[in-house]
């Protein structure tokens, strides 16, 4: 584990009735789970829900007191399968992951879970990674909910609504024997707000009590004929029960408006943006009053027909605000109104874009378009709303287009993955370009400058499998990459096992940075650290050999660029059959520095001898060709004016954020670049022996230097 502490956040989980909780949306969900008497929580880390996992991983004390079992699942599939505990037993369970990536992985278990149904409340906290800041393919979880018949909650993005919906999700699940998804968008996960806490509740039936008194009912097992019965149950029993619950609890909200002719039906998650758009158009205020009535779907699946009919009836036109595609809700609403013979005109994707995030600016345009079509007389009463288009088209702003450089994410200062791709670049310089199958993880930043390596990415741990078709006789081999996170998630079987079984000939690079670094440093099977709550230190090397890989090389210091390069070279050229597995292993520098820097500083403060390496560039030796940067891209390695009129191009420089990883020196050595780089080992609290040696050396070196300096003719 990266040894980050979430102690403060854990304290927030202890808040009792009446206390004010202040914090992030996803932590509010975490607290709400405990307030709901959840019996177990599982999940797979990933933005934007990582903090739920991280905080619970640090909250063993509270979890122990409440009797809550917490698992860091091997994958979302494992997490989803965990909900099986709620099938037969009245125990509430929650799982979480990033969606739709995680939902894809989990879908087998989810389908089975949804088929048999649940007894205890089963809630799936979905971090909906759609729109700006997302790191995955742009899709909706909505389709999954519909196809498996899992209820989908989409709360208004404020902490009170999110917490209230989380609690009621369990009740809805129990009332309708159906798992429930709680969809929380990226910004809502990260929003800072507050709510009034309640006491945490212990589960009514403990997991131990359940397994000591097992219960079974073959009617809940997904096998014919029960599976056919499930399909009928879903429609005949569970759906009506859910609709009744949603109606009774008023989970969907209607906000009245004085303009009787119009209305807006919106996903709960869109509420704040719609309100801001209405406010900027002069149709709402910041305290929640609106002139156009809103019907807020905090439950986006299933839709409650009669509520929608009641809202739409009597209105001339209703706008559906539904982010993402296709327009499931809009289509459904049209059908509902058609069946009820209600003539209200439905607008939706006609005035709003079919795809992409609904920002306030997009919504302003859409709402204006809706009003222009449905009630043009109202336009005169409205504010124009902000419109930066003219300004953005101005020559002054346009002149910035070629100036402002893109700044895609990249490897951090000192990242141990950088030298892997430096080495890969060097090998390609020698052996020509190769097909490189990339994977999910920080290593995917190799596709960006300066490396520009990698062709496809097909899913977590699927790098090697995505090169499967190319395992044919050819003059070149494929290179595929995956991280340790991807390896344990999927890659061991679908990547390495598949490659061994199908006698692949390609090269597989497993980037092992000692834990799941990209998602925040969570432990996995091969983590190097000991973890009291988990079993770690299971080497990746043992695993790949265990599934039959023969050509396996482990490099325990990726910064050794020459070895990295030579190993890749060997893997690409060896006559040995079968997949060539390279395990490139060094700890994530971001997390390592978070852990080590305070320790280092404390040791220096105590007066202990400590050595801090960092790199530098001799400015009079650097010629400003920037070859080093093209093989590195390190944030601490930059360029500056040479200050010498003879050198026109800027020269390389290393700033004080350098962590002394050694990549610069190793690359300039391996690529035979230039002798400008030096490593400076800064010795804090030197010993007497250090000082004596230094004094002697300085005497001799200083003498020689002065001797040469006096003879040297200098024009100043």
């Amino acid at each position, binding site marked *: 584990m990266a040894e980050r502490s979430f102690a403060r956040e854990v304290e927030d989980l202890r808040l009792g009735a009446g206390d004010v909780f202040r914090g992030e949306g996803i932590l509010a969900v975490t607290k709400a789970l405990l307030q709901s008497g959840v019996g177990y929580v599982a999940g797979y880390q990933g933005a934007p829900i990582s903090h739920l996992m991280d905080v619970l991983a640090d909250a063993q004390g509270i979890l122990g007191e409440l009797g809550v079992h917490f698992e860091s699942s091997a994958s979302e599939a494992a997490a989803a399968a965990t909900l099986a505990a709620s099938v037969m037993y009245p125990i509430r369970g929650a799982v979480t992951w990033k969606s739709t990536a995680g939902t894809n992985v989990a879908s087998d278990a989810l389908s089975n879970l949804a088929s048999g149904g649940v007894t205890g409340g089963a809630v799936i906290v979905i971090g909906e990674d759609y729109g700006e800041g997302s790191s995955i393919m742009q899709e909706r979880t909505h389709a999954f909910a519909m196809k498996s018949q899992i209820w989908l909650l989409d709360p208004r993005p404020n902490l009170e609504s999110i917490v209230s919906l989380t609690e009621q999700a369990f009740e809805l699940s129990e009332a309708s024997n159906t798992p429930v998804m709680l969809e929380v968008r990226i910004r809502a996960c990260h929003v800072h707000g507050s709510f009034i806490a309640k006491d945490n509740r212990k589960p009514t039936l403990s997991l131990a009590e359940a397994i000591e008194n097992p219960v079974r009912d073959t009617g809940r097992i997904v096998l014919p004929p029960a599976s056919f019965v499930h399909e009928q149950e879903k429609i005949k029993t569970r759906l009506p029960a859910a609709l009744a619950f949603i109606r009774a609890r008023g989970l969907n909200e209607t906000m009245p408006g004085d303009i009787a002719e119009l209305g807006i039906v919106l996903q709960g998650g869109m509420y704040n943006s719609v309100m801001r758009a209405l406010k900027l158009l002069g149709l709402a205020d910041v*305290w929640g009053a609106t002139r156009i009535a809103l019907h807020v779907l905090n439950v986006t699946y299933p839709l409650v027909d009669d509520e929608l009919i009641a809202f739409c009836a009597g209105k001339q036109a209703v706008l559906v605000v539904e982010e993402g595609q296709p327009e499931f809700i809009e289509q459904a609403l049209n059908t509902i109104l058609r069946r009820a013979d209600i003539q209200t005109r439905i607008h939706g994707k006609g005035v709003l874009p079919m795809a992409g995030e609904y*920002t306030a*600016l997009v919504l302003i345009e859409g709402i204006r378009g809706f009003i222009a079509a449905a009630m043009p007389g109202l336009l005169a009463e409205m504010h124009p709303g902000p419109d930066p288009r003219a300004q953005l088209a101005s020559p002054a702003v346009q002149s910035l287009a070629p100036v402002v*450089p893109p700044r895609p994410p990249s490897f951090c200062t000192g990242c141990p993955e950088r030298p892997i791709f430096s080495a890969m670049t060097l090998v390609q310089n020698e052996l020509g370009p190769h097909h490189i199958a990339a994977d999910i993880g920080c290593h995917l930043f190799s596709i960006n400058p300066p490396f520009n390596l990698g062709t496809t990415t097909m899913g977590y741990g699927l790098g090697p499998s995505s090169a499967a078709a190319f395992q044919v006789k050819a003059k070149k081999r494929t290179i595929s990459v995956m991280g340790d996170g991807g390896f344990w998630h999927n890659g061991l079987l679908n990547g390495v096992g598949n490659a061994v079984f199908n006698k692949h000939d390609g090269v597989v690079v497993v980037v092992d940075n000692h834990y799941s670094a990209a998602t925040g440093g969570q432990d996995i099977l091969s983590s190097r650290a000991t973890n009291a709550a988990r079993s770690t230190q299971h080497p990746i090397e043992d695993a790949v050999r265990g599934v039959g890989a023969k050509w396996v090389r482990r490099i325990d210091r990726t910064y050794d660029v020459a070895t990295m390069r030579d190993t890749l070279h060997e893997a690409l050229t060896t006559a040995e059959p079968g997949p060539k597995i390279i395990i490139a292993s060094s700890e994530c520098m971001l997390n390592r520095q978070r852990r080590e820097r305070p320790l280092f500083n404390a040791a220096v403060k105590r007066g202990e001898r400590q050595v801090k390496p960092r790199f530098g560039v001799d400015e009079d030796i650097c010629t400003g060709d920037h070859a080093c940067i093209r093989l590195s891209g390190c*944030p601490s390695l930059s360029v500056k004016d040479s200050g010498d*009129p003879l050198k026109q191009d800027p020269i390389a420089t290393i700033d004080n954020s350098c962590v002394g990883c050694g990549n610069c*020196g190793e690359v300039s050595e391996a690529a035979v670049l230039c002798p400008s780089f030096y490593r400076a080992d800064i010795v804090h609290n030197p010993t007497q022996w250090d000082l004596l040696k230094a004094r002697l050396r300085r005497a001799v070196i200083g003498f020689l230097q002065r001797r040469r300096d006096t003879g040297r003719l*200098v024009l100043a």
Partner: protein
Amino acid sequence: MNTHPDRQGIDRPITIAIMAMGGQGGGVLADWIVALAEHGGWVAQTTSVPGVAQRTGATIYYVELIRPQQRNSRPVLSLMPVPGDVDIVIAAELMEAGRAIQRGLISPDKTTLIASSHRSLAVVEKASPGDGRADSAAVLHTAGATALRFIHADMQSMAEAQGSVISAALFGALAGSGTLPFPREAFEDTIRAAGVGVNPSLRAFAAGHATVGSPEPQAAAAAAILAPARPPPPIPATMQGGSAAERAELARALHRVAADFPAEAAPMLHAGLRRLVDYQSIAYAHAYLDRIAPFAAIDSTPGHELTLEAARHIAVAMSYDDVIRVADLKTRGARFARVRSDVLATQDHLVETTEFMHPRVQEICATLPARLGLYVETSPRLCGVLKRLFEHPRRIRTTTLHGFIPLYILASLKPWRPRLLRHQRETAHIDIWLALAGAQSDQRLATELIKCRRLIKGYSDTHSRGQSKFDKVISALPLLAGRGDAADWIRRLRDAALADEAGVMLDGALRTVATL
């Protein structure tokens, strides 16, 4: 619902967008603003989309603040900035300020832009073989023209000088801007309450605060951007060291510069003399002037550009980087002092320096007397032996005697340099190059050919690649013979050669030239 015009902070929230790069502490700044507002009894909401952008990418934090009307009233706040409706934009880096403008977050009627004018270069800017740095002045101009108020200074240096981080200086500038209805003490109390690095943060806060209202830091930052520091060498020059005879010869060289060369070229010629006296000898420096003299004699280019560029590029060509030069530079006392200051070592620290060298057979042969070098170079057997003996990475600790002394001895080979293989090769190349330039009746073309020398830089493979690009550009000359725009084509080819390492642009440009 209210019908009167919006009052900021009452009917509409104060909206703040923070543009930062991952790892810059944009989140800390956002949290401070929230704590400040909540402590003042306001409702605050912040959100962000860090995602993968936390790995050095551009990222944005968004804050809204509003004063509650009555107890328990709950505002509906936005989770993202609305272009055209942002009151304050804080940019933790100059290009991020530019990005905020491009996103429409800066409105002339509304937005106070507080930006740090320092640059953190993007990879594409750094990786260019030439100078790929973005034009800071363009952002500065546009920001000034686009924002209602534009407050900027190098907040990064300001914070570093106080041992703190940029968020503290930006927080200070925010307080100083007066855009938030909280007193300075409330800001400072927020930093104190956060309890991390309080005193340095308060000093950086004060420095940031002082940038607002006092024109100096802003003017200094603007001046640094608009006129990058390229100090002309001071004239008159002073001499140190060497023998009396050497100093007399140097005086004569300075006199030659004054008497025989245009005044516009004097600073560059001084720089050249300084470099070559240091590189080899005063006699070598005179040879340098001899090489420029023919160009100066005929120079009728505006601003004596031909002489000026000859002075620049001949100096660089004549001071080619060989192992003797590298050994000399690495072993100097001044260099030891510079390393200590570059790595911020104090008196209490010892600094040990390790150099990364990778001598190749080519370099070894080049450092042998010319005939011997050639003989070895053409003997595969000897090359093989040398390769086995010497050609592997060497880490030389120059702060130890057994690391320092071999380099010191290598540097002492300087007097023999003119007889070595490398020197003969470089000299031959310079002669061909200058003869080619000198043969042109078109002085603009001659100037452009002189400037092509910029392509040759770096060591080993990089150097060879530069050389081959140089050769390719020069190879277009016959195709351009007699054309009035030959100079422009050579300039275009050179710019293309500097655009990418592999020379893709150059090859394309050469194909175009072939069709002329």
